């Protein structure tokens, strides 16, 4: 289970970086549709982190 959790955690990290980059680009394009949808993705990723990354950080 822990191996799979770690793999999920890595995916969350990659997706967070991608969503942040997407948001940055959308801001540069003055595109609310890009910024706001990226915000929603980031909020969902934060929930995934509560489920996956937080328990992984325990001893």
């Amino acid at each position, binding site marked *: 289970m822990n191996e799979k*959790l770690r793999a999920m955690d890595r995916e969350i990290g990659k997706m967070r970086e991608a969503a942040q980059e997407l948001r940055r680009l959308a801001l540069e394009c003055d595109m609310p549709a890009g910024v706001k949808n990226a915000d*929603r993705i*980031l*909020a*969902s990723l934060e929930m995934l982190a509560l489920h996956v990354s937080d*328990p992984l950080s325990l001893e």
Partner: protein
Amino acid sequence: MNFSTARYWNPVLETLPRDQLEQLQLMKFKRAVNHVYTNSPFYRKKLDSAKIKPADIKTLPDIQKIPRTDKNELREAQQTDPYPYGALLAVSTEEVTAYHQTSGTTGQTVRQADSWRDWEWWSECWATVLWAQGFRPQDRVFIPFSYGVFIAFWAGHYACEKIGCEVIPGGGLSTEDRILKMKELQATALMCTPTYALHMAEVAGRMGINLPNELHIAKMLCSGEPGALIPATKRRIEERWGAKVYDHAGATEGGAWGFECAEQPGGLHVNEAMFLVEVLDTETGQPVEPGGKGELVITPLDRKAQPYLRFNLKDTALLSEEPCKCGRSFRLLKGGVLGRSDRLTKIRGVLFSPTSVEEVVRAFPEFGDEYQVILQKKGELDEVTVKVEMKPDERDHPDLEERLKQALRLHTGVRIHVELEAHGTLPRFEVKANRFKDLR
């Protein structure tokens, strides 16, 4: 995908060994203290006044160093900028996407700000509850709720969507129409207050509808009042609906923190992965031993826009460390929420305080000094009647009764019957007034 073998919304968090669960709580609590100290002017001031820095929290017992938060402090904090959330707001106003409010029964309402990220959090907490009670993607859930400013079942709606249930928003319909709609659409699950569940059953009876035979409701989440864990009430609702009834506890400030699982263990699990719930002795303020009864103090560990540390719920409960057959490591509050530590009572899911009536009544120059608040059962529903005396020379204005009703509704969030009495007809008191009568 039907998740037929998935017993938990998150099997990792819900079955964490106790020592790891406590580590998780400490880690999150530290994070929450850091967040409020940096972003919430209210908590920064409160912690500074108590001479506490985030770095002072090193162990779980250290949380006792942080003073508890009471509702009156929140009201005061909301008198400041930025409007309307004041010093409680811990994000920019641009991030706020949802407004809700408490019912304001002990005074002015508390306004609650949530960001989209917080709505995600709300629905996660509710999804844990619903999954534990057997709600699954194939369910068609009917929500007979007003969809107004009170938070109530809003997050339940979002959580159903997150799980993948089909949601039927049953606001804006009469009770009769709601029953017919559930029948027409073959709804399989329902969420409402216990009082309303009984009321709907009574109405269905008058309509000649046999709920267990003609509807398809198999499970019901009942919340807003303690009834679903009162054995006689649970039994009555289950018999009338032919469905399983599960309790859930939450609060506007606290979030969706407690739930009865499908094993129906006679208590509420505390979602200890998302909340730190303390049961404190009402006299000493110290944590009670397992089996002890005390006052609930809650910290939602992952809330951001308008967060709380050690919020005093004013609910009483009995802490148990008995394991549950469901396998969750979350502890149980035996019998659920046992009552209020003050004199508040819930009417159709809205907290109601008899003393909140006084503020409204006294604002009317036409009324004398005496009034009475009477709480009684009308069929299955709790009803409040306010009797008010006119001033000696005052006559009953044609619209006065209606104006009082509206003012009471606005102030308390409860629909209240009003009776205007001639001067001198209500009881007088020598020392302490007792204007509240509970006839239920």
